[in-house]
């Protein structure tokens, strides 16, 4: 037995946000999100075939693997069981186009975890939503592959493989709202079916994992901002309901913007955040070069979250103004 003269070190355990601000622990909440993501996952398989499960598997596999590898290199505890890497992988897969190249999927997953999360210090330290970082990287790297869409399984001849937003933007074709609602349209895996996304999203809010404020602010925002343009010129600008149901808006609303880590913590901040996303989104969709902008709108507002938190902090009682 040897003893040393070096003092034993006592360690103060510090954790960063997400702190528990709901009745669920981080771990429980993460698994609830995975349950909520089941309906969009099922709709992806129904509309685009079983191959999509392979994309999901690759995405989750590489996300978990990257997390484990980086934690090992940094000699940190591996917390795969908290489910956050699984969610990032699943979210990333669900916002990719159907039949997407598996190698690209793996790369996106590595980037999402590596550059989106771990490089900032891991869960709780990331500024941006990791899955969206992965998607943005793929969008910039493989612009052709990521805008190549598949026809859904039950497509009738009138439905083309182009997404409703692209069809509207480039060819002024308006897709029926009922198709948007069911999801029999071209688009990313889990984003096409509004009803499936709503099912999962309402479940999350009902059990208290996601706060209602951000989704509500976004929905009100897109109806108001989109509605203003629609009222000005109903031919050139789409109906606000179209904004609501087309593309990745609902998916982004319930599963991306509500991310605990990269959204504001104050009630007022959540409203600002949600309204900000919908304003940026409407501007990108109507005046930008790209047909869709949910990803960039959320990433853009993610960058403002520290500032929003700072300025919406409740005033300390008795503090002089």
């Amino acid at each position, binding site marked *: 037995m*040897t003893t040393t003269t070096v003092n034993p070190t006592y360690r103060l355990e510090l954790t960063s946000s997400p702190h528990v601000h709901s009745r669920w622990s981080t771990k429980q909440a993460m698994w609830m999100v995975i349950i909520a993501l089941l309906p969009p996952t099922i709709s992806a398989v129904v509309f685009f075939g079983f191959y999509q499960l392979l994309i999901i598997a690759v995405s989750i596999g590489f996300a978990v693997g990257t997390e484990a590898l980086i934690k090992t290199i940094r000699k940190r505890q591996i917390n795969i069981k908290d489910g956050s890497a699984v969610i990032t992988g699943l979210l990333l897969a669900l916002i990719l186009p159907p039949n997407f190249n598996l*190698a690209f999927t793996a790369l996106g997953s590595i980037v999402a975890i590596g550059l989106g999360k771990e490089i900032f210090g891991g869960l709780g330290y990331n500024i941006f939503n990791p899955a969206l970082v992965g998607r943005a990287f793929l969008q*910039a790297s493989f612009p052709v592959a990521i805008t190549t869409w598949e026809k859904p399984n039950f497509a009738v001849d009138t439905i083309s493989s182009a997404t409703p937003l692209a069809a509207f933007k480039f060819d002024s074709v308006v897709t029926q709202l009922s198709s948007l609602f069911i999801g029999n349209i071209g688009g990313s895996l889990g984003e096409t079916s509004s009803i499936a996304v709503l099912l999962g999203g309402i479940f999350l809010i009902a059990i208290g994992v996601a706060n209602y404020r951000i989704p509500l602010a976004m929905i009100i925002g897109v109806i108001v901002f989109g509605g203003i343009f629609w009222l000005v010129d109903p031919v050139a600008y789409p109906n606000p309901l179209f904004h609501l149901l087309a593309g990745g808006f609902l998916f982004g609303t319930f599963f991306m913007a509500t991310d605990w880590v990269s959204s504001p913590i104050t009630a007022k901040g959540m409203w600002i955040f949600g309204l900000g996303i919908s304003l940026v989104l409407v501007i990108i969709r109507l005046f930008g070069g790209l047909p869709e902008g949910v990803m960039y709108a959320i990433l853009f507002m993610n960058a403002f979250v520290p500032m929003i938190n700072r300025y919406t902090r409740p005033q300390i009682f008795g503090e002089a103004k």
Partner: protein
Amino acid sequence: MKTKATLSQEYVKGLWDQNPVFKQVLGMCPTLAVTVSAINGIAMALATTFVLVFSSLIISIIRKLIPTQVRIAAYILIIATFVTLVDLVMKAQFPELSKSLGPYIPLIVVNCLILGRQEAFSSKNGVGRSVLDALGMGTGFLGALFVLGGIREILGTRTLLGFQVLPDFYEPWLIMILPAGAFLTLGLLMGFSNAYIAKKKNKERETLREKYLKPKSPTVNAQEA
């Protein structure tokens, strides 16, 4: 008084210890903007080095003649002269290269690396030391831009200096030749270099601790005895 560095140290310090890109974080504009390919990086670095060396040479010669109040104006005049020289020669002899580097050649004038070295070094040191310092900084700049441009070119177009180095089935990551790729590559390179240095320092501290704390411990000796 601090002993003066040897002449070779004046050159070597720019390569790594005071590398303009990774350590001093100077000249970020050309570093990020032109490194879409290795050859662009090399050309940019050579042009910058040329301007840096000749400016340092001239300024260290006339450093005692320039009144302090107008020294910055005088430095900028001299630097601008050499930059214009490079720009004209490039346009006349290498029109293709000049086109791909675009406005970044004239912008060497405002590269803080050059003015920084004049203010911090050439205005206070002799001709030999100033030229060696400029050459060292230039070489460090060249190395950094070559590595950055090389990585971006390989991943973004699967070639290096125009020769294909990655197989055809590798799909180029277009992001690497876009501005975002420049930030990602530079950030990761800086991160890795800092992590490496931190690790090295930690190790040194460990060895020092081993050396000075362990043997003095009486309990260890007692046990051995």
